[in-house]
């Protein structure tokens, strides 16, 4: 694993907290956070009121210099999330559950309210 600067870790955590808050407001339950295996990490596992399990990838950026955060989630990243979701469901004995992959782009410009671009069921 590459070493990540403290600032980036903090920024990522801030973004994830923001998304969790949003999901709770939607009436979701948070099943897991920062679940990590060798293959990678799932930022958030939540369950919608209708029972669908959502695996959420959160990308946070503090400026638009490198584009909108949602553009930072490529097709490879979402494919990896697909594999991680399989691993998570096996580990947690929820293999048969309905699930979907969600993406969240958080724009956290300093001294301004966070902006969230949430895309559900992207694959």
């Amino acid at each position: 694993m590459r070493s990540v600067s403290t600032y980036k870790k903090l920024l990522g955590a801030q973004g994830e907290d923001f998304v969790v808050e949003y999901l709770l407001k939607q009436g979701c339950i948070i099943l897991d956070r920062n679940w990590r295996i060798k293959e990678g990490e799932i930022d958030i596992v939540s369950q919608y009121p209708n029972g669908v399990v959502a695996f959420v990838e959160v990308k946070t950026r503090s400026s638009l210099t490198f584009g909108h955060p949602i553009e930072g989630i490529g097709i490879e990243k979402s494919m990896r999330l697909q594999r991680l979701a399989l691993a998570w469901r096996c580990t947690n004995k929820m293999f048969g559950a309905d699930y979907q992959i969600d993406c969240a782009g958080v724009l956290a410009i300093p001294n301004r309210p966070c902006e969230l671009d949430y895309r559900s069921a992207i694959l």
Partner: protein
Amino acid sequence: MGLASLSSISLVGLNGHLINVEVDIGDGIPSYILLGLPDSALSESKDRVRSAIINSEEEWPRNKITVSLSPAWMPKSGSGFDLPIALSIIAAHGAIPLAPEADSVFLGELGLDGEVRPIRGILPSLLAAKSLGMKRAFIPFKNFLEASLVSGIEVVPVTSLKETLQILRGGQIPQHFQEESETVTPASDIDLMDVVGQSASRRALEIAAIGAHHLLLIGPPGTGKTMLAERIPTILPALDSEQGIEVTAIHSVAGKLLNSTGSNSLPPFVSPHHTTSTAAMVGGGSHQIKPGAASLAHHGVLFIDEAPECATGVLDALRQPLESGEVTISRASGIVKYPARFILVLAANPCPCGRSSGKGRGCTCSSLQIRRYLQRLSGPLMDRIDIRLLVLPPSRLEMATATKSESSAVVRSRVVAARDTQRNRFANFPWHLNSQIPAKLLRTDFLAEKAGMNLLLSEMDMDRLSARGFHKVLRVAWSVADSNQHQIPTITDVQEALSLRQSLGHFS
């Protein structure tokens, strides 16, 4: 989130097909998918289109963009779809209305800065758009001269994506487009006047131009074979507008017009190098089948210098176009037909060292070498050559004489008159040139004077003329007669025609 579609044109050979460019902007992470069998230039359009849109101060949608070029089964190539793709994306994003543009076509490559750049094949594309019932065409401004040859369709030349958007949003078409385009006929700077002496060769050239007869020039290096051949287009009648469009369309597909100034009424002169490949000679290519030298010389002259040096097969590939006036190319991606009706001019040295003509002094070749050299021009090809000419160095007297030779304009006026005579004579037939008279009709409707026919028959009796050669000589005799303003070929016309075929002596 949205859906939009626009029309464009894809070329297969010279035939255009209507392509529907559809764009869907849907849910999902940002991505871009291009469907409809694109080649690599077309696949790369994504990055051009994205940069062009952003640099034109429009928004690039952060969604899943699906671009489909239908019909999906037809392979598509080239960069001409950049403009319709970009406009469809902007329209699907809701930034411009596209409903009134149902009968418009859009063509053009985009630069990263949003500039609309010229593409090849504009002329045949517009002809196709017109015949498909389209009313309006948005094309690159730099293709405007070429596009102005087409009438019956409103052409809107655009310089940039931004400008196109302004027009589509109801803005005025900028004023500088209303300028009249000038059809420039570049004055050729070569003239038959430049040729010193060579009265026999000049006469042969004139006869060849009159009846569009194919020509073989044999002579030692430096006698002016190339010089003579280059001047044939200057004595041919100027192309009429229909021929001009045909020629321009072929050159446009080949991408030879990108920097030119529009239509040209001078017959084309194409001289491929003798190392040229078969595909370059008759046309080819795996994805987009492009016209070859034979088609580029359509209505003009195809000149092959050092013909015996050509790879075997390259010259023989010309037999089909010589016969039918068109080239049919079959590849995995499809079958394409290009017109190829040209005057073939072959030039050759008499032997590998080039010095065996005349007394053959200084020639270092063995007799076997000399014989083999010209044998490389295959029999079936040579059979299609009507006039065989020995080009000898100008004499000392000719070099010293200061009198000027006839200019191309003078010779051309005679050629034009002779062509008119032919057109009147063949008014009831599907052809209009002496070289195209079918053999059967030559023996029934287009005989020479009795004395002339007897001369030809006696030549045949002496085995100096084959049956095919008999017909060839008769066709040339008609051109000679037209040149001499005889109603039908006289004995002297037939004699001259015979000498044009047999002047090579031991080389033929």
